[in-house]
């Protein structure tokens, strides 16, 4: 049995969690209720995000140096018009 994706996210329904995931949840102390709330929240957030074919919302945030230090210079997404833009969102953890 594979984990069925749920609510348009990459996460499975709480009823179809596989042993490996349940083991991880036990390790981190995450309850089924917390898991379900997390997926519901992320699904809800996703409904407001731009879908394929939609204009990506503009934003203006600070640039970092190649070493990850703040520069005081800002980057504006709309300044990239005319070129495709590939975005990676993430954090260390």
């Amino acid at each position, binding site marked *: 049995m594979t984990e069925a994706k749920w609510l348009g996210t990459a996460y499975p329904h709480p009823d179809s969690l596989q042993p490996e995931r349940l083991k*991880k949840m036990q390790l981190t102390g995450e309850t089924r209720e917390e898991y379900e709330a997390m997926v519901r929240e992320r699904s809800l957030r996703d409904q407001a995000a731009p*879908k394929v074919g939609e204009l990506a919302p503009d934003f203006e945030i600070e640039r970092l140096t190649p070493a990850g230090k703040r520069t005081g210079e800002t980057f504006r997404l709309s300044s*990239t018009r005319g070129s495709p833009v*590939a975005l990676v*969102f993430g*954090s260390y953890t």
Partner: protein
Amino acid sequence: MRLNEIYEELKDRVQFYCVYIQEAHPTDGRQSAQNLVDGILYEQPKSIKEREELAQVCVLRLNLKMPMLLDDMSNEVDRLYAALPDRLYLLDENGVVVFRTVVGSPGFDVDAWYAAIRGHVGAPGASLPIPGA
């Protein structure tokens, strides 16, 4: 590292940016089992200074080559793109979304993103163009 390889191959044709957002698995949030194993134990930054420090750790440890941006403490960009925990997007020349991975870390599909980028720019060896691109 895969992201660096993709960046090096296609950076002349696509602008790449890595947006450093709030921590996905801080010790005071939704901890991940793998991070417990790996000893990656950090609290959620409470200031932009703390977030900057973690971004530096990330860049150095993962040896990230692509240009980096820092989401501010309002987490506005994370929210706009429903990015947490991590996510990949491709925008066309007009800023329209051409591709995005599904929300959630199991959906962090670098290969699918790479294929979408190559398809969009018509890189040699690309399989099929992205419909509507």
